């Protein structure tokens, strides 16, 4: 997927839009900036990917990404620009539905994009042990001892510390 010949293994806990954004951000820094398609095109692709990851994606963004990616691949001066669009093009090709979920439903299926996910506690599973209250850096978790706890979504920064700590799998990401 990357032009460098590297291979990365991912599972369903990786968000493909986030992955494309990650590589595009990296490539924007790598671009020497000499030619227009690579210097300006990679930057614009990154901006759009960032929008999609934060729920600001627009209908038509995927088509636009494909258009920019093709132009950058065809029009760039060197091999960096020639392969810079690969992460975008291949994630769109194989994980189109992930893009659509972000744009249309403001949902990150892999539960990675922080702006699009909420943490909640399943009252059936929660034993009220209070571990999550101890680990939460922003005091977003609260509850009485031995009673189901709650997460305040205003305070929650989606750091994931509570999930790690919960022994009863009571905390879910949606």
């Amino acid at each position, binding site marked *: 997927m990357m032009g460098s010949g590297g291979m990365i293994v991912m599972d369903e806990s990786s968000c493909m839009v986030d992955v494309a954004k990650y590589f595009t951000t990296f490539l924007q820094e790598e671009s020497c*900036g*000499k030619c227009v*398609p690579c210097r300006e095109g990679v930057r614009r692709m990154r*901006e759009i990917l960032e929008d999609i990851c934060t729920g600001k994606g627009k209908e038509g963004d995927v088509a*636009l990404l494909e258009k920019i990616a093709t132009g950058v691949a*065809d*029009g760039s001066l060197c091999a960096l620009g020639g392969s810079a669009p690969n992460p975008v093009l291949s994630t769109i090709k194989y994980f189109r539905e992930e893009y659509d979920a972000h744009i249309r439903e403001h949902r990150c299926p892999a539960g990675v994009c922080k702006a699009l996910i909420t943490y909640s506690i399943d009252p059936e599973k929660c034993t009220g042990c209070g571990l999550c209250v101890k680990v939460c850096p922003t005091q977003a978790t609260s509850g009485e001892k031995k009673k189901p706890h709650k997460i305040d979504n205003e305070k929650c920064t989606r750091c994931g510390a509570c999930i790690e700590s919960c022994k009863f799998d009571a905390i879910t990401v949606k």
Partner: protein
Amino acid sequence: MVNLIIDGKNVKADKNMMVLEAARSAGIDIPTLCVHESVSRSGACRLCVVEIKKGSRTRIVTSCLYPVEEGLVVDTKTERVQNVRRLVLELLLARCPESDVLWKMAKEMGVEPQTRFAVDTDKGKCILCRSCVRVCEEIVGVSAIGLFNRGSHKTVGTPFMEKSDVCIGCGACVYVCPTGHIEMTSAGDKRKIWGRTFKMQACEKCGKYFAPIDQLKYISKKTGTPLKEMMICTNCR
């Protein structure tokens, strides 16, 4: 002389020509931004792309840098070519929304600005084509300006954006800039460029201020012509 085919036309071209010149000599127009006859070519804007065919393989190349070859088949208007050109213009319009040159070009090519791009407000009209840097280095010979930083942070200017003591205020960079990004203002015996003010020399015959004194000194030193003999403008000489 070599023979090539451009847009289905048989074209004869001098063997030292680039595809761009060969096409233009045959009346085929190719848009360009970073080509200027006074400076070497950088291939930065990518507006001049064309598609070439060799055997069954086709490839996109920049016509301003691609030398003609016997039997070369060139297409200047394929879908792929147009898509690159349109993208380049959309990207540049978002970068330099104040450039009349870009707007005019976009209009001629039927390109609308891409509204999905957030328009830049800090880039001026500079498309980073490098022509100013090259003229200052290759023709003027002082290398007062350069391109700094990498990637999308690239900018043009004097080192550290400070007043340059090697700039002679000649204005050659202004002359080659395709978009009019470089500001040069003149008032009375003063010329301002790249943040520095130059004192101008008045022509001893007509009295018109015609060149910065620093420029005359520089030419005098370079050519050995005594400064005294350079106080007359080209019109009166």
